[in-house]
């Protein structure tokens, strides 16, 4: 039904089962925008595929990641070794498949640790404000004065290589950005009119935090977590590349690449495949993060 019928209206009605209006709830609207966002969906698919690979690494990998076959060392990609082998004759494909576990799991642990430390600090600073905020943020200023990768490197250089050291290095180096972002998210919500109005009708403090503030800050946080995941994986690979990440023979992608870089000119496959995997994974997380941001931000329709 409408005042006049234009081709556009007819087309719309046809598509929408004769109805003139399509109504979306906010959540559905965000979901719709997310699913229509090609980059986000591609990113999500890549991540899901990587997760599957990581979980079923045992079944998927043709060889054990430590299996050394000196006879087949330095072999180029072939039917038997799809990605070729390295200088010890280890199958690079298998190492990369097992490496997915390290990258994803360690990335996740890093993000969780960052949030437990930096995130909590930021939320506390933002929620309580005043002196607490001032003290926390001034300390963060100090941390921010050291560029992130430098911070991470000095920490691993001091503590040595290994998983816990690397997690500590990455979560401490991301401390200032994580806390700042969380603080901002909380401040935005805290000063929003709907929080003000629920305070006016006497909603308790904890109910306020859990019912109003956190749900509304979640969108921003999710976007940030996804971005942080990509950043952590990047940082891990960089640290391993520089020799201050994990210890060989761990099949971490940065380490595989680092071990292969000496043979780069003669056997580029030892560098190219792990490099592609690192790039692909970070790209996937960035794509997903961007897609989520567009979906959660209704202004950019």
């Amino acid at each position, binding site marked *: 039904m409408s005042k006049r019928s234009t081709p556009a209206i007819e087309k719309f009605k046809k598509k929408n089962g004769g109805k003139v209006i399509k109504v979306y709830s906010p959540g559905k609207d965000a979901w719709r925008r997310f699913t229509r966002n090609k*980059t986000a969906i591609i990113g999500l698919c890549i991540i899901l595929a990587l997760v599957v690979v990581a979980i079923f690494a045992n079944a998927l990998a043709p060889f054990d990641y430590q299996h050394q076959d000196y006879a087949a060392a330095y072999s180029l990609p072939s039917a038997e070794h799809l990605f070729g082998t390295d200088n010890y004759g280890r199958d690079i494909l298998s190492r990369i498949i097992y490496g997915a576990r390290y990258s994803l799991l360690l990335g996740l642990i890093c993000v969780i640790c960052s949030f437990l430390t930096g995130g909590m600090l930021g939320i506390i600073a933002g929620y309580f404000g005043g002196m607490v905020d001032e003290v926390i943020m*001034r*300390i963060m*200023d*100090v*941390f*921010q*004065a*050291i*560029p*992130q*990768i*430098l*911070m991470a*490197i*000095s*920490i691993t*250089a*001091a*503590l*040595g290589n290994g998983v816990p050291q690397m997690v500590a290095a990455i979560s401490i180096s991301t401390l200032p950005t994580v806390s700042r972002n969380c603080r901002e998210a909380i401040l935005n919500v805290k000063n929003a009119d709907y929080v003000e109005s629920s305070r006016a009708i006497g909603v308790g403090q904890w109910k306020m935090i859990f019912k109003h503030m956190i749900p509304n800050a979640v969108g921003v946080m999710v976007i940030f977590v996804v971005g942080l995941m*990509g950043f952590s994986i*990047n940082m891990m*690979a*960089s640290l391993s*590349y*520089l*020799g*201050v990440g994990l210890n060989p023979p761990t099949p971490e992608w940065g380490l595989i*690449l680092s071990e292969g*870089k000496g043979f*780069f*000119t003669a056997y*580029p496959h030892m*560098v190219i495949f792990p*490099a592609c995997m*690192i*790039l692909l994974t*970070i*790209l996937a997380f*960035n*794509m997903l993060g*961007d897609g989520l941001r567009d979906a959660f931000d209704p202004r*950019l329709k």
Partner: protein
Amino acid sequence: MIRFIVRRVLLMIPIMLGVMIIIFALRAVTPGDPVDQILPTTATEEEREAKREELGLNDPLPVQFVNYVGDVLRGDFGESYTTHQNVLDEILQRFPYTLIVCFGGVVIGVILGVSLGVYSALHQYSWVDSVTLVGSMFFAACPGFVLALVLISIFSVQLHLVPAVGLQGWTSFILPMICIALASLSNYTRITRSSFLEVIRQDYIRTARAKGQTENKIITKHALRNAFIPIASNIGVQIGNQLGGALIVETVFGLPGIGKYIGDAITARNFPAIQGGVLFLAIVFTIINILVDISFVYINPRLRDSVLKNSRKIKIKQRMQKAA
């Protein structure tokens, strides 16, 4: 304004002190005895003890820290374990290379990134926009060392256009600069694009249109400056990232800058060099941030006003205190 600058510089002192605490703490938690690094394994226990005493390692930690701060203030960043030279001298020698690569790269990145960002915002959904978006996403995701290796394999190994590693004349700077430029370019393109898209939706752009202003002038006279506010505030952070990125890029390209210096020091467990390098870059980074803050105040009149008002408020407060 001078008051603002002075205050900003004074604020540097506690921050630098904090940075020194972090660096010192890292040294304190480092397992192993530093003396092992300096002296040959054949050294006797007496020699070791003497060295410990000389380095002040037997003092309680607070005393050690005060000594450390005193040394740094005197310009003594310690002595390199490997070369036995003053770390600060070594760093200052290498600083120009980092400066050229880093700032050259960031400047190229900013100029190209902002222009690309504006162009793709103005032609939203065009093919240039899509290519720019995909490209910037790709380069933003690409870790520095991967990018560096790819560039080397294309331009040095395949095309023999520029030297792959080491310092062989000015051509050696090209690839590292491109590396840094691409990384910051992707960032600025994205920030500029989104900030510009936000600005051209604003009411005052419509007002400018209603005045009969041409589209080109609307962009140059009204949109750019406003779009630049978020970009400017990001430049400081970006330079910090690229100072860190320089470490990786210089290591890959074997360029003798501070980054390579720190990288080498890490491999050799040369702690005074690592700490000195990190402290030096932190100082540089903080100074850059102050400069960015000051320029930021010039770009954003609202901020300028609050800065001036604050200093006025302080003046009034001081006067009142004097009177009381």
